[in-house]
């Protein structure tokens, strides 16, 4: 959970969530809506610059987050680039019956670039804003109370359960529980059973403790009030309008 650690340690931690969301989600929207590769590359470069230089997200965290979808993008690109029985005019190279087409490669490059650009924008938000701030923001945006509450509980229990599953797995491995495929499957079944049971017990104990204190509505904490920074919003708006006008002119003039 490198992203979560980066978010809590971020220099942007005390900026208003709305400010950061405006910049990151605005850029994400431009990246997702644009059909031009030029715009994708520009958004990717800009998001990388802001993330690494201004918001000082650790480079290793940023790289590992950005490469998380790499396997999917690679397989998807292969599927897009190759075909069987393509037009000769469109064929770049052939391996047996499989043809690599020019249009397919172009499509794969566009989709991959768009994906990495959008990912960079998402990471800019996720690695500067802790989940609790994001949930408080969603609550202000009138996302149903019950869902925000449950999401908050999931976040609260997540780390304890991940720790538990890690230590159970270590104990199983020390007892040769992962020596063969058959034993590994058995171990994982037992591991998940233990984790679910632990989650349950924990929830029930929390419930008993809270019921004794008159808990009926939601588990709220006082959010830290962060002031909107006019300078930050102004610069974000400037950057976004620049990107939007570039994207529009790219679409009108038919840039690649």
């Amino acid at each position, binding site marked *: 959970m490198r992203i979560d650690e980066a978010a809590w340690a971020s220099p942007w931690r005390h900026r208003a969530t709305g400010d950061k969301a405006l910049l990151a989600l605005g850029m994400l929207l431009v990246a997702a809506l644009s059909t031009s590769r030029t715009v994708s590359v520009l958004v990717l470069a800009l998001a990388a610059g802001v993330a690494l230089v201004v918001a000082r997200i650790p480079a290793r965290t940023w790289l590992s987050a950005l490469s998380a979808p790499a396997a999917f993008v690679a397989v*998807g690109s292969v599927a897009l680039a190759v075909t069987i029985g393509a037009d000769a005019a469109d064929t770049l190279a052939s391996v047996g019956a499989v043809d690599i087409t020019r249009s397919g490669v172009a499509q794969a490059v566009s989709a991959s670039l768009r994906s990495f650009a959008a990912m960079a924008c998402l990471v800019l938000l996720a690695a500067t804003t802790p989940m609790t701030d994001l949930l408080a923001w969603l609550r202000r945006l009138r996302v149903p109370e019950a869902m925000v509450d449950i999401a908050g509980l999931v976040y609260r*229990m997540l780390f304890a359960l991940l720790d538990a599953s890690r230590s159970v797995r270590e104990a199983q491995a020390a007892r040769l529980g992962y020596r063969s495929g058959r034993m590994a499957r058995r171990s994982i079944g037992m591991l998940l*059973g233990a984790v679910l049971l632990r989650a349950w017990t924990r929830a029930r104990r929390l419930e008993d403790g809270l019921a004794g204190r008159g808990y009926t509505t939601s588990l709220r904490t006082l959010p830290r009030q962060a002031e909107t920074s006019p300078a930050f919003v102004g610069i974000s708006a400037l950057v976004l309008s620049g990107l939007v006008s570039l994207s529009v002119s790219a679409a009108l003039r038919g840039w690649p």
Partner: protein
Amino acid sequence: MHIAEGYLPPLHAAAWTAAAAPFVIHGTREVARLVRERPGARLLLGAAGAFTFVLSAIKLPSVTGSSSHPTGAGVGAVLFGPPVMAALGTVVLLFQALLLAHGGLTTLGANVFSMAVAGPWAAYAVYRLLSRASSGIRVFTAVAVADLVTYCVTATQLALAFPDATGGFASAWTRFLGLFAVTQIPLAVVEGIIAVLLIGALRTWAPDELAELGVLQPAPQGEEAARA
């Protein structure tokens, strides 16, 4: 298999979000109703969501040597029911996007549709249809079908977004199906086996909780006495 952030063209991303929305809204209503009736259910639902996240973060040793992550859709549908799974699955997918950079916000709708709607409902239908079969076969089939349906829906989403220049949708669809089959078919089998072992483990450790969820009939008197 999560579709990466920004990978789908905007219109497709919006259309899948619209397709998933009614199921998620229905699930959210169901969750809100559960919580209103039984305030304690809130904590159990939180635990279920956290469990689904941990489940999907575990690396499975696969038959073909490739490692992949379980989706948790099938087990979740059997344990908690598909409407609740639509709501919890959305929360879990959002967390995976924000904490692990798996999936994304623009593709959240498409991923919710394949993993939190289609998979769980298919699992639930199979689980219901096989009500006469032994529990092991029911759980295995339900979980394996959930994974296979999820994988087919994902391939469909990608093929609709990127149809082949010459062969159209069908050609692109078979290609995506074929490429993802390498990891997804072994995953369905392995996740099915593990789900059977998981339910088996819960049956010995937590029969009361399972009965409360409606997965297991309460043990008859005789068996209870024999255990005591």
